[in-house]
């Protein structure tokens, strides 16, 4: 117990890094995912197939392999990367972790959005067209907002998965929550206590993510709830 108590400050530092890399990768991945989903749905094979291949690769290989390829793989091509001025990025484990996580989550998220876009009821699209909306306007006002709502439950899953996946970055010597736990275990030889403590912190973080998504879902589903009853209010005022 004393060991866990004394380790808490360091575990929290690790948890902060976990939150940071999760947040950055989620944000970047989300930015990339929307255009990727649209390209994935394109009728032009030159646009669709490369995106399809990218998504297939990142969904079809384990994250640990992707991370190793980017981290140790880039080490092999140091000269090429240096002449391209990119080595200063690939030199950093932090950058490699963010890059791998972003590419990974963007692939999954794009696929979630693709499903959601295809799930928008055709009647709504038809109605928009009947109103004379252009293609751009149709996507901006009807399809994308509706798809976002449809995608939300599956997307919250993806964010939770990504949070757990970040634990793998400890293998490239980053001190995230798992990494810190491992460093402390190295000298205390108490894996159960430390990993249990780390598990509790992961649970709390996951709860935080779920809570945020619950709030967003509530906010986006206003039109599905009953209106507040105006007449009751009127009686009170009177």
């Amino acid at each position, binding site marked *: 117990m004393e060991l866990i108590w004394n380790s808490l400050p360091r575990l929290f530092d690790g948890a902060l890094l976990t939150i940071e890399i999760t947040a950055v990768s989620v944000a970047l991945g989300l930015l990339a995912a929307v255009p990727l989903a649209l390209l994935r749905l394109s009728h032009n094979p030159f646009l669709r197939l490369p995106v399809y291949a990218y998504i297939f690769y990142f969904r079809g290989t384990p994250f640990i392999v992707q991370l190793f390829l980017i981290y140790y793989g880039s080490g092999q091509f*140091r000269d090429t990367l240096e002449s391209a001025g990119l080595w200063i990025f690939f030199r950093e484990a932090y950058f490699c972790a963010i890059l791998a996580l972003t590419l990974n989550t963007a692939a999954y998220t794009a696929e979630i959005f693709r499903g959601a876009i295809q799930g928008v009821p055709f009647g709504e699209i038809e109605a928009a067209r009947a109103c004379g909306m252009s293609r751009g306007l149709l996507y901006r006002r009807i399809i994308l907002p509706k798809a976002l709502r449809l995608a939300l439950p599956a997307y919250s899953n993806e964010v939770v998965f990504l949070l757990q996946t970040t634990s793998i970055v400890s293998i490239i010597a980053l001190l995230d929550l798992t990494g810190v736990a491992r*460093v402390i275990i*190295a*000298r205390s*030889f108490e894996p159960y206590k430390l990993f249990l403590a780390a598990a509790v912190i992961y649970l709390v973080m996951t709860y935080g993510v779920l809570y945020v998504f619950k709030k967003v879902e509530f906010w986006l589903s206003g039109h599905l709830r009953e209106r507040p009853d105006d007449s009751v209010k009127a009686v009170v005022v009177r």
Partner: protein
Amino acid sequence: MLRKIFATTIAALAIALIAGTASAEMKKVRIGTEGAYPPFNYIDSDGKLQGFDVDIANALCAAAKLDCEFVVQDWDGMIPGLLAKKYDAIIASMSITEERKQKVDFTAKYYSTPAKFVTKAGANIEITKAGLKGKTVAVQRATIHENFLQDNFGEVIEIRSYATQDEANADLAAGRVDLVLADSVALDEGFLKTDAGKGFAFTGPGFTDRKWFGDGAGIAIRKGEDELRKALNGAIEQIRADGTYKNINSKYFEFDVYGG
């Protein structure tokens, strides 16, 4: 059909049991090793365990008349795995230190070599607090070398801890870290003499301070298992005396790794 399979299985189990009791005089001992620490223990291209530790382990088992079986385990789970009874002894170049002695017992040492830093040849880094200030040092996690860095240079350097020594070496070769600290022989044979180690060299003195580096590499066993400890200690003396140790030593090294 099912019944037939069942009957055959029972018969096979019975035979195995009888055979098992027949060889019960040979005590079964499972030995934990890492398999990622050349030249002491590594897995060769055919997927077989090789190395100085493995040869020594086999020689010790023959001398102590033990029926040994190897279990491969990642380094940072080595002692927890022993305590969880996944194996009965660790023969994996584990140094005998006070910190570890609080959790496990050790036999006498079976070799002892100093720790050294490796850096780019001609980098001219002085191994002092001032000289190392701001440097990044790679090390294997849960090693005496990690402890030594934390305790002596923790405030002035950035320590990067890797699961295996090979990964630490790879990041030195890639230029992501400035130095690596590890056992001098493991660095020499496992890195400097390989293609990846070209252009790198030892720097600074060899470290042997007992407080961190202990009394050389020994065999770790669970506390209280004195019978096994005595058997292994006897076996170490025996292979030292009968020339087996010397043969294994010269297969890997040009000098005596047993140390003074």
